[in-house]
């Protein structure tokens, strides 16, 4: 039975009221007195030398305030990269400069060349059309393998070549892996592409810069998942503004999915321009701009090989991946194909030897960075697909092959440098078998065939590393930041609480779920607790929301701060009750003396803290406010098993998703309703990747999929109702809530199930198909059938 409030209850979301009544406060809803508008003139060619930018005609256009080009940023730092990867030779990656406005060259379609600030957006756009940019077009490099040829045009003339890094992991294992492959009874090899995607949160990015002359304070309102990170990066590395003179506000944010983690040029621009123009400056991205300026995701090309012994045990795994960085290094781009990908290659299986090689490549395309799952979908996809192919080649059941190789004992140290604390992969597979009614599949296949359709079933597992991350570990791995989280819990005199968290909610429902935890700890009503987030002026330094980290890291910080509150409140209660502190118990919002009927209400204690007339002033300070920073000791490891059933039209290759089931282990769960919603959304993005979405460039670097007319976003009719279950729970052992995180699982676990199901459908018709590259468009599926 659902609980009425507290941990484990499906409390309705309080934030819904404002979103359902049009009372949200998104960044584009913010308009400051006297604001001007900026329009960015962006490159329409992929690679070229800028000879001249003539703004003279545009300067005189109506409403123009000021036109900016690279010259205006001569004394300003470039866009920083937050992660430095060391390659297999021990050398640091090649790290090119990344200007705010194109300097000397343009390197991708969409790169901003000039910025027009004007009284209205329309005037800014009109004036931008009057800017004359003289560019000599250069040959563009788009394909990663072409970019690594010795005679390839260089994206950055000051680098040796287009190779950002050549990473080997674990390099010391390489020889042993080679030996295992030589001894293998069977080797399965699969080449595949993890298609390039665009995150496409429904709210396009927006940035509003403001500067207060009186105090010298800058304010940036922006669509960010992590306002403190933007404040640190932009303040320290780009504009040289000390943090105490810079406030970053990310109010209601309309989805992120990773692409709103990063620090973008437009944010630095409006902050800079607000001071230069002495008035607020606002930028609102159009969707067309978003396609060519939001960091893209995925775009890996991989060859994976799995070695098995004569009993079908996995003995070794090796991969060779090309990862597209785009033209510049976005904030966390280097970490995605390396530490967020290589470390997950063991998956759910006890493969003893693994070697991962990743070549990160610069091309004349939009920068690529984390998108929901970030490295883990790429790892899961290749591993699960090669297992399916091995099962086909060996003539064994793919689920049984997985079960045979499951990790069974925890904690488990993988050969790729991580230690899984808990999991039960048999439990989630068993649960999936039940909820997906796998036993009924053959009957459903016959029914489909009777209607002339092919039906296929795809089943796979996944594991991910969430709750990023131990700061000392990521520091060793090249991160230029810590990855703790913070919370300040402020108890008011009348007993209500405000939690100021460094986590950021942009759809995840923190305003509802976080209070459930504190309500449970203190025994008070959820409505007495309010969450504040998204404003560096009101919250302690925090690292924000991504990597399914909010409840595991931010929630843990909140628990730690609340524990401090309770400890102090017990001291106050012991004074009021004239009892020993060790005898004080907190239950249902009241402090009592163990073994007696003496008690004092929560509100009486909080009032005493702020009206300390009868109070142990000699021992403790007045007030009731505590801060905690929580730095996790390990990642968390959600896992699960997913099943997809598709129908394929024999004549057209059209694929429809008939059933989709997910059995996840997220450890303990705070709000099951919200968790299910997160899984639904992730699955839809995974199905989108598998069936529909593809970010396409032509050979000249023109972005072919630059609007919703060309980039196939999943629609309601592309999806079935999903069956999701998270009753298998092996709690995390190293955070106080036992939680693992659920934000990315759906996007990680679903693509291989979809592809596996289509392959299975085609094989049911006698087609000798083992893999089809995503997206599984009708033309590709039809071609695979021929």
């Amino acid at each position, binding site marked *: 039975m659902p609980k009425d409030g507290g941990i484990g209850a499906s409390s309705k*979301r309080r934030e819904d009221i404002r979103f359902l*009544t*049009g009372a949200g406060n998104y960044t584009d809803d913010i308009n400051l007195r006297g604001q001007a508008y900026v329009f960015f003139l962006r490159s329409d060619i992929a690679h070229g030398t800028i000879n001249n930018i003539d703004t003279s005609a545009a300067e005189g256009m109506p409403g123009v305030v000021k036109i900016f080009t690279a010259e205006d940023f001569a004394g300003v730092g470039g866009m920083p990269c937050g992660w430095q990867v060391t390659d297999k030779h021990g050398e640091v990656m090649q790290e090119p400069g990344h200007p705010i406005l194109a300097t000397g060259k343009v390197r991708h379609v969409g790169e901003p060349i000039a910025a027009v600030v004007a009284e209205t957006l329309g005037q800014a756009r009109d004036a931008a059309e009057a800017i004359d940019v003289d560019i000599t077009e250069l040959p563009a490099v788009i394909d990663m393998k072409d970019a690594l040829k010795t005679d390839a045009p260089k994206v950055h003339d000051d680098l040796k070549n287009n190779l950002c890094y050549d990473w080997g992991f674990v390099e010391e294992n390489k020889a042993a892996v080679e030996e295992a492959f030589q001894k293998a009874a069977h080797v399965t090899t699969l080449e595949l592409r993890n298609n390039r995607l665009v995150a496409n949160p429904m709210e396009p990015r927006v940035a509003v810069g403001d500067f207060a002359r009186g105090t010298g304070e800058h304010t940036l309102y922006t669509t960010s998942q992590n306002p403190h990170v933007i404040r640190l990066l932009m303040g320290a590395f780009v504009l040289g503004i000390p943090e105490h003179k810079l406030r970053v506000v990310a109010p209601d944010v309309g989805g992120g999915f990773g692409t709103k983690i990063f620090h973008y040029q437009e944010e630095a621009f409006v902050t800079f321009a607000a001071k230069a123009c002495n008035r607020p400056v606002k930028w609102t991205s159009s969707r067309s701009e978003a396609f060519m300026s939001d960091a893209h995701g995925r775009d890996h090309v991989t060859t994976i090989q799995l070695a098995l012994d004569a009993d079908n045990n996995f003995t070794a795994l090796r991969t060779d991946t090309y990862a597209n960085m785009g033209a510049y290094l976005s904030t966390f781009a280097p970490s995605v194909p390396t530490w967020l990908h290589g470390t997950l290659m063991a998956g759910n299986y006890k493969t003893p030897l693994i070697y991962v090689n990743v070549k990160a490549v610069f091309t004349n395309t939009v920068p690529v960075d984390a998108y929901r799952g970030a490295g883990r979908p790429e790892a899961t996809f290749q591993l699960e697909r090669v297992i399916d192919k091995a099962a086909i080649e060996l003539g064994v059941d793919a689920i049984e092959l997985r079960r045979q190789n499951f990790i069974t004992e925890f904690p488990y140290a993988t050969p790729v440098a991580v230690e899984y604390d808990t999991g039960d992969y048999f439990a989630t597979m068993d649960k999936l078998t039940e909820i997906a009614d796998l036993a009924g599949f053959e009957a459903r296949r016959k029914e489909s065939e009777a209607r002339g359709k092919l039906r296929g079933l795809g089943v796979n597992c996944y594991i991910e590393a969430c709750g990023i991350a131990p700061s000392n570990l990521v520091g060793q791995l090249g991160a230029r930041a810590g990855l703790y989280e913070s919370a300040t819990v402020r108890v008011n005199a009348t007993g209500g609480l405000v939690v100021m968290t460094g986590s950021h909610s942009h759809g995840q429902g923190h305003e509802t779920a976080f209070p459930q935890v504190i309500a449970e700890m203190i025994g008070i009503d959820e409505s007495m607790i309010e969450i504040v987030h998204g404003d560096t002026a009101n919250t302690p330094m925090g690292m924000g929301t991504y990597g399914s980290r909010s409840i595991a890291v931010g929630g843990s910080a909140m628990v730690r701060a609340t524990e401090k509150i309770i400890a102090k409140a017990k001291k106050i209660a012991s004074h009021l009750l004239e009892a020993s502190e060790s005898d004080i118990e907190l239950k249902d919002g009241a402090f009592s003396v163990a073994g007696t009927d003496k008690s004092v209400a929560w509100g009486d204690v909080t009032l005493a803290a702020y009206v300390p007339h009868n109070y142990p002033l000699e021992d403790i300070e007045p007030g009731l406010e505590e801060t905690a920073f929580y730095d996790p000791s390990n990642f968390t490891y959600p896992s699960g098993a997913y099943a997809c059933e598709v129908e394929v039209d024999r004549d057209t290759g059209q694929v429809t998703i008939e059933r989709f089931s997910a059995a996840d282990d997220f450890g303990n769960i705070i709000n099951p309703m919200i968790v299910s*919603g997160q899984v*639904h959304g992730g699955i839809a993005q995974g199905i989108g990747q598998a069936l529909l979405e593809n970010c396409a460039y032509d050979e000249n670097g023109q972005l072919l999929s630059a609007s919703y007319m060309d980039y196939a976003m999943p629609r*309601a009719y592309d*999806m079935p109702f999903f069956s999701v279950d998270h009753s298998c729970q092996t709690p995390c052992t190293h955070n106080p809530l036992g939680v693992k995180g659920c934000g990315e699982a759906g996007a990680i676990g679903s693509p291989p199930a979809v592809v596996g199901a289509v392959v299975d459908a085609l094989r049911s018709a006698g087609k000798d198909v083992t893999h089809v590259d995503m997206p599984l468009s009708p033309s590709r599926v039809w071609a695979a059938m021929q």
Partner: protein
Amino acid sequence: MTQVNMTVNGKAASGDVEGRTLLAQFLRDSQGLTGTHVGCDTSQCGACVVHVDGKAVKSCTMLALEADGAEVSTIEGQANADGSLNVIQQAFQDHHGLQCGFCTPGMVMSAAALLKDNPKPTETEVRDYLEGNICRCTGYHNIVKAILAASGQDVSAIAAE
């Protein structure tokens, strides 16, 4: 600039607009009704859906001047007279039919238009009707469920939560 006059959520609304001013811009910038969102520039996403003379319209694809004299209703005008959520809004909250909230105003306005014409739609009819409304958060599961529930149909058999 030309003056445009219309009724928005039952109240007279007027302002000076350029010929190129879109209805969505007029509502957001001139009238301060920022519940209507703009999520794309090709009339695909549906975050900007409002009702014009009772019909669902993408307000990013209609000039403000075209709505001169019209009755317009937006998400801000949907709640009951006492301020409580209407049946569709309440169903969206009850069934977790929204996450980030950005597509939500358009979804609610489209759902209202659907249920006006088709009070008891099937699942397939709901999904087809939402062709012009993109959501990136929910996978549509709980949106479809909420709309079916708002139509008075029993959704208890649809996967929980």
